């Protein structure tokens, strides 16, 4: 796979034309929803004329289609935004463009990022880069496959409960879910505002750190952003790493455990201390997640009403217009999550579900803090299985949700977590391991990963 440096100091037009040609060759994977060829070539020519400069001048990238971008549509892979053309760009896109990077198109996702396989896209699933009968993972499935197929050297994704890490692991690339608040969420379609993060997928940890450095930092348009703390670094000394034993049980595929064990041995061989630790609340994290996140989804998706933008259904009254526009515009999984959110926030149920979940969330965070008193980082598999077959989990939402059991804890606690390639299964499917760090230790995670590549 190419790295970012392969695209620097060469013709930007050739970079863009090559990426677009590769995107066309790879159409059968359905990783990309739309190409913004005209705007990309215009910007490439401006780079070649020296009018646009920067540390990423002429480097092509793709953004998940829930980032607002100019030059084409932003659909969130939904029908309700099928023809939506954003009047502004996400802060992350603006920052990359300010360094001369060129967005060539938009990647497929589960509609509104609700899912773990990219099968919930209104425009059809993305196929795994290593086996077209298997899922790409999700919800940033298109972003992961676009990097794995070497269409572009990096992509942007969003991760609310594992949506960057899990597809990264399914496709053998590096995926970064930063500390909550590292990257501005401005101009990104909101899912669950208390755990939504913006991150990057790349071929190696070094490139991922390079992009994180550019897109991170305080933004007045997102009051939850942290003052810029991300600085790429190299590893210093040896680390103390805890392996969460509840994530290495018999419920986890043996090949996934074997890959994690092999990575652990490599860490030990490099001089790091690796010990088994307990995160006893791990098994409750998914239940917390499927209360808190649908609650926030039901609020955030209230804005899609067919009035100010997006698809509007034909209706005689306003109430019918809302109901029909939303029925036609949302996928089944969107509706499930919105309705679960309405349920847990209903008067009479609020204390039993939402409040209880937020209290258990505190207990989970306390348990993490306790572990970080002793350990620098924690390690788990990313997902209990390698990429599963398309359709295999489609009729069982709970089974699909269980794919996220390892990734949601860091999301609920706002911790940085990365997915790094750790080998392949006998069938040739990539397997990743997850490294979880202390708040704002994002660069240290990537430095360790880089030292192990």
């Amino acid at each position, binding site marked *: 796979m190419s790295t970012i440096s392969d695209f620097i100091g060469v013709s930007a037009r050739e970079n863009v034309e090559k990426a677009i040609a590769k995107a066309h060759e790879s159409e059968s994977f359905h990783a990309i929803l739309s190409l913004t060829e005209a705007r990309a070539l215009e910007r490439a020519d401006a780079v070649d004329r020296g009018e646009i400069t920067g540390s990423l001048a002429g480097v092509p990238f793709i953004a998940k289609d829930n980032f607002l971008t100019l030059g084409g549509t932003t659909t969130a892979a939904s029908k309700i935004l099928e023809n939506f*053309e954003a*009047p502004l760009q996400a802060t992350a896109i603006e920052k990359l463009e300010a360094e001369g990077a060129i967005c060539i198109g938009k990647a497929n996702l589960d509609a509104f990022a609700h899912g773990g396989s990219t099968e919930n896209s209104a425009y059809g699933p993305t196929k795994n880069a290593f086996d077209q009968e298997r899922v790409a993972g999700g919800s940033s499935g298109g972003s992961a496959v676009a990097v794995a197929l070497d269409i572009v050297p990096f992509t942007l994704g969003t991760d609310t409960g594992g949506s960057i890490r899990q597809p990264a692991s399914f496709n053998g690339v590096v995926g970064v879910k930063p500390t909550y608040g590292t990257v501005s969420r401005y101009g990104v379609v909101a899912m669950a505002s208390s755990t939504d993060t913006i991150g990057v997928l790349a071929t190696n940890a070094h490139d991922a750190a390079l992009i994180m450095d550019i897109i991170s930092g305080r933004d007045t348009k997102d009051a939850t952003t*942290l003052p810029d703390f991300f600085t790429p670094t190299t590893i210093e000394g040896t680390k103390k790493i805890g392996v969460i034993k509840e994530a290495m049980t018999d419920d986890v595929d043996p090949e996934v455990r074997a890959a994690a064990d092999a990575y652990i041995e490599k860490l030990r061989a490099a001089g790091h201390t690796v010990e088994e630790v307990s995160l006893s609340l791990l098994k409750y994290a998914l239940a917390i997640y499927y*209360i808190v996140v649908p609650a926030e989804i039901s609020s955030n998706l209230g804005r899609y009403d067919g009035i100010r933008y997006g*698809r509007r259904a034909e*209706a*005689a009254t*306003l109430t019918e217009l809302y109901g029909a526009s939303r029925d036609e515009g949302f996928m089944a999984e969107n509706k499930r999550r919105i309705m679960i959110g309405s349920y847990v926030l209903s008067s009479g149920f609020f204390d039993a579900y939402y409040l209880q979940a937020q209290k*258990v969330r505190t207990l989970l965070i306390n348990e993490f803090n306790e572990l970080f008193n002793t350990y620098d980082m924690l390690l788990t598999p990313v997902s209990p299985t390698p990429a599963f077959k398309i359709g295999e989990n489609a009729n069982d939402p709970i089974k699909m949700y269980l794919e996220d059991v390892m990734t949601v804890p860091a999301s*609920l606690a706002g911790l940085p977590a990365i997915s790094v390639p750790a080998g392949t299964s006998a069938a040739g499917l990539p397997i990743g391991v997850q490294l979880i760090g202390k708040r704002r230790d994002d660069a240290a995670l990537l430095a360790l990963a880089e030292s192990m590549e």
Partner: protein
Amino acid sequence: MNMTQISDDDVQHLAQLSNLQLGADEVASLRTDLENIIGYIQQLDELDTTGVEPTYQVTDLENVWRDDVVDNYGIDKASLLKLAPAVEAAQIKVPKVL
């Protein structure tokens, strides 16, 4: 695990709260799915959270202030109105409310 029973009427009530007009074919499968999901999330009942403060956000930030000045974020009225499905006299047009 105490399973919560969800009726078709419950599904329709939740749909109404959610501003969703469901097709007749959607109700049965949503009822099963919601029952299973609610059954799953009820496992949090097992935990004693007496005296535990809830966590609503994880930023460590408090009271993020900005100056009280108007910022249009670089967007004007015309470009926003262009997004609306129906516009008349620079207003967004909707069907009758009552």
